[in-house]
């Protein structure tokens, strides 16, 4: 730890300042290293890797490896996995936002018999991850013939109340007078919802979208169970399927290219929408 100097009681100056940066840079490098290594592995040949140590600087096989992964992959082309992941992530994010907006609107802005009961029923689902109820959920999905389908991938993961709860919290902070002014202006409930509540929720919706997109994209166990057909594999679960079962060497350059492709969309979303992402994260944990 850097010493507190006489003139800089709290904020660091001079030498101490550099120690802080050095400490942080070491941390960033530690965090970065696995990704760097994966990237390097995705740009070299298989023989570079299986005769360790592998190089630590990128090679010239970038195009070869990535095009091989995207077009043929190992069991299924990664391009189709990316597509499946995209549909699943969008389906989960948009579906959850849609049903949550509607139900939160009903719970906050109406008084009807059973309102409290419904609120608690939804609330109960707040924290139970799909991992805990996989076997019976699998049976339900199989019973509906939804194995190897987008609806099977999406619906079970929409059944949770985090987003509903979040929108409820937000609607509670919208001044009552706005709804009353809209009533005086002649807006019926759905008009108010569409013209006023929805535009006002834009930031919240975007923030939640970022979080839910990542949540959906990164699902592993559920797609692993219900997509037996390689053409329905998502990319995150598809990587594991690329490992050979026996003693053979795995095709590391292609696997690593796939890993990089698998993390690229959510990473782009997080970094480009950093502010919304942080807001969504903080909101959804409150």
């Amino acid at each position: 730890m850097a010493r507190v100097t006489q003139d800089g009681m709290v904020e660091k100056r001079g030498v101490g300042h550099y120690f802080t940066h050095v400490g942080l840079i070491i941390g960033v490098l530690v965090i970065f290293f696995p990704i760097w290594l994966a990237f390097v592995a995705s740009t070299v040949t298989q023989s570079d890797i299986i005769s360790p140590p592998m190089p630590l600087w990128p090679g010239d096989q970038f195009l070869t490896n990535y095009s091989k992964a995207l077009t043929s992959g190992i069991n299924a082309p990664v391009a189709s996995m990316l597509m499946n992941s995209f549909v699943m992530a969008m389906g989960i994010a948009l579906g959850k936002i849609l049903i949550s907006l509607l139900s939160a609107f009903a719970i906050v802005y109406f008084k009807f018999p059973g309102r409290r009961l419904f609120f608690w029923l939804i609330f109960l689902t707040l924290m139970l991850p799909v991992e805990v109820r996989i076997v019976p959920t699998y049976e339900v999905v199989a019973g509906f013939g939804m194995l190897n389908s987008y609806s099977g991938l999406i619906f079970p993961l929409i059944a949770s109340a985090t987003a509903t709860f979040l929108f409820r919290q937000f609607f509670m902070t919208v001044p009552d007078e706005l709804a009353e002014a809209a009533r005086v202006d002649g807006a019926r409930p759905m008009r108010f919802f569409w013209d006023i509540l929805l535009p006002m929720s834009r930031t919240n919706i975007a923030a939640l979208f970022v979080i839910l997109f990542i949540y959906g994209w990164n699902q592993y166990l559920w797609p692993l169970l219900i997509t037996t057909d390689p053409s329905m594999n998502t990319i995150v679960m598809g990587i594991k399927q690329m490992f050979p079962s026996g003693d053979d060497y795995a095709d590391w350059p292609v696997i690593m290219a796939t890993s990089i492709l698998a993390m690229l969309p959510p990473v782009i979303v997080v970094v480009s929408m950093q502010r919304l992402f942080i807001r969504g994260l903080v909101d959804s944990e409150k």
Partner: protein
Amino acid sequence: MEKRVTFKGWLLPMCLLMPQIIITAVFFFYPAGQAIYQSLFIPDPFGLSMKWVGLGNFEYLLGDSYYRASFVTTAVFSILVTVTSMGFALYLAVLADRLIKGSGVYRTLLIWPYAVAPAVAGVLWLFMFNTRVGVVSWYLGLLGYDWNHVLNEAEAMGLVVVASSWGRVSYNFLFFLAGLQAIPKSVIEAAAIDGARFWTRFRTIVFPLLSPTTFFLLVVNIVYAFFETFGVIHTITAGGPQQATTILVYKVFSDGFVSQDLGSSAAQSVILLVIVGALTIVQFKFIERRVHY
């Protein structure tokens, strides 16, 4: 907190609620109910009928040394993941908080591993420590250490812990940094004027003021380690060696889908349900308290 309810009628709100109610009923309440129901039966060997065993599945589980071992494994695993990821995140957050400017740059550099799926993180770390081609294991070999997580239980545990903690650092870092930045600078300056050096200030002022954040992260990280690390374990160790990394969620999966032991798997689901419920209550109690601050 109650809103002045402004719209009348019951048909419209019912219609608005329907999508969520239906999805929740079909994909949440029914399966959860099924889990409870199935936990009270054993299917016969041909899967044709179910035999009522009451709490037999639970009794069996609690007496099963593998299941008890899985409990211990889960506890060790969650504690290690929580401590590792929170410790490293706190270290980085304290450093970033000391910067007058530029903490935003480090934040950008540090947050994105959050977006990497646990399963992908597992593959990355597996690659580094692979016994045949891994860079880290090769250099460890040069140093005379023979790394083999495929056979060595402690090494397997260490690897899944590190791989699970890695992406989690981002998340914890964000919350710690926000918590640190919320501490009034004047409090720290007052301590500095009183002659407290950095470490003393951290121990006696900063850390106590940070305790709401710390406690919150503790609960959230335990929940994460319990339920969201399946991908890491499945990709790196598949629960082995000798079930050394079989955490409870992994066991529900392997008993239910690999061994097809539905009654036991359902009973395990119910036990997990209770654990999640308890953690939720802890978290809500905590949030309530935080609101009253």
